[in-house]
C-alpha cells in the first residue's frame, strides 16, 4: 500500500517526474459506518433536511481519504448548496407528477422539454462537481457547451437506436470523450484521446461473456427445473424448493450482471485513464482486472442483501480501495506551477440545482 519510490527516471529531460505511485485510499469501514448510520438517523429525525449535510460529510470523507503523493482531495460544496438543489428538485418533481396525472398532454411536452434541457443539466451538474473538487488548493473545472452535449447525449443515442444499436459503442465513446476532455485542473486542460475500437471491442467481449453466461445459466435452469417438477408435485404448497429456487436464480442473476458490468467497466475505465493526461503535469494508468472487480461487486451485493443494507459502508469503502489501488498516477514538475482559475467565479444556483441529478466523474 506504500507509494512506490519516487521515480528518478523521466520520460522527457525537461520534464522530470516528481512522483510515481498508486492512489492511496485510507478510509476505514468501521469509521465510515458510524458517520453513515448516525447521519441517516439525523436525516430521519429532521425529515430529510439533514441529508444535505450527510451528503457533504460522506463526500468529504471519501475525497479526504483519497490521496495522491500524500495530498488529499477536498470536497468543497456546502450543505446549503446541496439543500437548495434538493428542494428545487422536489418542487419540480411534484409539479411534474401533478401535471402528468392531470394533464397528460402537457406532461408529454414536459418530457420533450426535459430532453432539450438534459444537455444543459448535464453541463451544469458537471461544472458544479468539478468546481467543488480540489487537489493541492487548486480546483478542477468543466467547460463543455450545450451544442456538444446535445449531440453526444441526445442525438447520438437516438441515432444508435435506429442503427440497431450498432452505433452505440461509438456513442458511448463520444459521451466519455466529452465528459473527460472538458475537464481542467486549474489553468491546465486535460488531453483525452479515446478510441472507438476499444469501445467496440469492450462491447464484443461483454456480449461474448453474456452469451457464454446465458448458455450456462440455461443449462442450470433446465436441470433445476426438471428437478423441481419431480420434487414438487403441489405448487400451491410452499416448500423448501419453491423458496430456494427463486433465491438461487436471483443469486445467479446478480452474479451474471456483476460479471457483465465488471467486464465492460474495467475495460473502459482502464482505457479512459490510460488515454488521459494533463501535459507536463500528470499522467494516469489504470490496471483494473475484470475478475477482481466482478468478485468485489458480487460479494458487495451479497453482503448488502444479507445484512439488510448494513454492509453498505463496508461495500463502498472496499470498492473505493480497490479502484484506488488499480490507479497509478505519475506527476511531473509542471504540477508545481498550476494556478487556480476558478477562484473568482461563484457557482450559480442552476449549478447547485443540477447537482441533484448526481452527474459525477469519479476520481478514485
Amino acid at each position, binding site marked *: 500500500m506504500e507509494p512506490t519510490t519516487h521515480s528518478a527516471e523521466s520520460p522527457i529531460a525537461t520534464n522530470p517526474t516528481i512522483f510515481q505511485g498508486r492512489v492511496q485510499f*485510507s*478510509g*476505514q469501514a468501521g*469509521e*465510515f459506518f*458510524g*458517520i453513515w*448510520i*448516525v*447521519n*441517516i*438517523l*439525523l*436525516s*430521519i429525525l429532521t425529515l*430529510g433536511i439533514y*441529508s444535505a449535510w450527510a*451528503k457533504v*460529510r460522506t463526500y*468529504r*470523507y471519501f475525497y*479526504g*481519504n483519497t490521496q495522491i503523493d*500524500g*495530498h*488529499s482531495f*477536498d470536497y468543497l460544496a456546502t450543505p446549503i448548496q446541496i439543500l437548495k438543489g434538493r428542494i428545487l428538485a422536489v418542487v419540480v418533481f411534484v409539479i411534474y407528477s401533478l401535471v402528468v396525472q*392531470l394533464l397528460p398532454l402537457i406532461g408529454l411536452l414536459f418530457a420533450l422539454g426535459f430532453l432539450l434541457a438534459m444537455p444543459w443539466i448535464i453541463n451544469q451538474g458537471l461544472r458544479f462537481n468539478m468546481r467543488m473538487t480540489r*487537489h*493541492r*488548493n*487548486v480546483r478542477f473545472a468543466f467547460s463543455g457547451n450545450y451544442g456538444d452535449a446535445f449531440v453526444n447525449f441526445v442525438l447520438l443515442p437516438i441515432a444508435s437506436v435506429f442503427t440497431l444499436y450498432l452505433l452505440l459503442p461509438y456513442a458511448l465513446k463520444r459521451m466519455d470523450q466529452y465528459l473527460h476532455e472538458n475537464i481542467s485542473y*486549474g489553468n491546465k486542460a486535460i488531453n483525452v484521446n479515446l478510441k472507438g475500437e476499444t469501445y467496440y471491442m469492450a462491447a464484443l467481449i461483454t456480449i461474448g461473456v453474456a452469451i457464454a453466461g446465458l448458455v450456462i445459466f440455461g443449462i442450470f435452469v433446465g436441470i433445476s427445473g426438471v428437478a423441481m417438477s419431480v420434487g414438487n408435485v403441489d*405448487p*400451491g*404448497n*410452499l416448500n423448501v424448493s*419453491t423458496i430456494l429456487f427463486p433465491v438461487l436464480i436471483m443469486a445467479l442473476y*446478480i452474479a451474471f*450482471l*456483476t460479471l457483465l*458490468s465488471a467486464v465492460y467497466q474495467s475495460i473502459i475505465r482502464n482505457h479512459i485513464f490510460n488515454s488521459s493526461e494533463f501535459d507536463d503535469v500528470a499522467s494516469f494508468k489504470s490496471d483494473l482486472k475484470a475478475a477482481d472487480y466482478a468478485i468485489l*461487486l458480487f460479494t*458487495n*451485493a451479497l453482503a*448488502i*442483501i444479507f445484512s*439488510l*443494507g448494513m454492509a*453498505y459502508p463496508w461495500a463502498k469503502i472496499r*470498492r473505493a480501495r480497490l479502484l484506488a489501488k488499480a490507479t497509478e498516477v505519475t506527476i511531473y514538475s509542471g*504540477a*508545481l*506551477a*498550476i*494556478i*487556480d482559475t476558478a*477562484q473568482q467565479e461563484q457557482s450559480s444556483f442552476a449549478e447547485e440545482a443540477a447537482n441533484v441529478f*448526481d452527474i*459525477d466523474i469519479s476520481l478514485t
Partner: protein
Amino acid sequence: MSDFPITGCYYYPNSSQHQQCSAIVTDDNLQLVDAQQQLLVSSSLVNCQLESPLPGIASAISFSEGGRFVPQDIHFRWPFAPDKQRLTERLEKNKALILLSIILTPLLLWFILYRGIPAIAVYSVSLASPNTVENMGEQVLTVIEKVALEPTKLSEDQQSALQLQWQTMLKQLNLDTAKFRLSFYKSDYLSANAFALPHGRVVVTDELVKLLNDKPDALRAILLHEIGHVEYHHGIRLTAQAAASSIVLAVIFGDLEGITEVVLGSGSSFLQQAFSRDMEREADQYAIEKLIALGYSNHDFADAIEALQTRFNEQAKLDDSWLEYLSTHPSSQERIDYARQYKPK
C-alpha cells in the same frame, strides 16, 4: 497546548505549490514556520476558518488570504475550535449512539414508510376534489385499457344481470352507487382476474365471470374484496409508499453502482410485496365480513379463491406466472383456511 508545534503542509493561495511546515498557536494568533524557522504565515485566529471536523480526516485550517494548512496527524483537532462545531463528529464516533441508530433507523423507516407516508397520502387525496380523483382514476383505466384490456364479449343479458346484482349489493351495504362502478373487459393478459381503481371503478374480466359462472356468490365475494381495496384506500397507500421508499433508499444509499441498485430495487419490491400481502389480507377480511353481513357465507370467499387457485395451477404448467402471483398475494391455502375458519365477532 503541549501539542504544538504541529507539523503539516501549507498550501499557497490559489496555487498547487506547497510547503512542509509547523504551526504554533499563541493566545489568539497562529503562525506557520518552515524547517529553516522562516515565517510563512501569521494570522489572528478570528481570521482562520475551520472545516467541521470529520472522523479520520485531518482538520484543515484556511486563512483569509486563501492559503491552507493541513496537519499531518489526522486525529489532531484545534483546541480553539468551538464546541458546537465538534458536536457532529462526537456523535459520529459515539458507540452508544451508533448502536442506537442501528436499532432506531429501521424502526423509524418502517414507521414512516408504512404508516406515516400512506396516511398522509390518504389524507391529501381526501382533500383533493372528487373530480380530480375521478379524472386520475379514469386516466389510469385508459392506460390499462390500452395495454391489457379488450371490449367485453359477455352477452348483454349477462352483463345487466350482474350489474343489477352489483347495484343491489351496494344499496344493502349503503355504498355510493355513483362512486362504485362495475365494468367488464376481456383480457388475455390478465386472464381470470379483477382489480379496483382508487376512485371506485371495479374491473372484472370475462374470464373470471366464466370461471365463476355457476358460483355467483363466489363472484360476489371477489367483488367485495375489490370494494375492500377501495374502501381502505389501498391503491393510494401503495403508490405513496412506493414513491417514498424509492426516494428514501436513494438518499440513504446515495450513489449506488448499477448492480447494487438492482439489488436494492428488488429489496424494496420485496418490502412492497409484503405490504401488498397485508393489504390483500385486509381486503379478504372486508369481503368475508360483508358476505356474512349480507347473509351469505364465509365459504363463498374460500370457494372463489379455490376456483382461482385451480385455474392458476393449470396455467402454472404452461408458464411461471404463478411465481409472481405467489409473491404479491398471501398463499391461497392460507386465505382459504382463513375464510373457512372465519368466526364473526
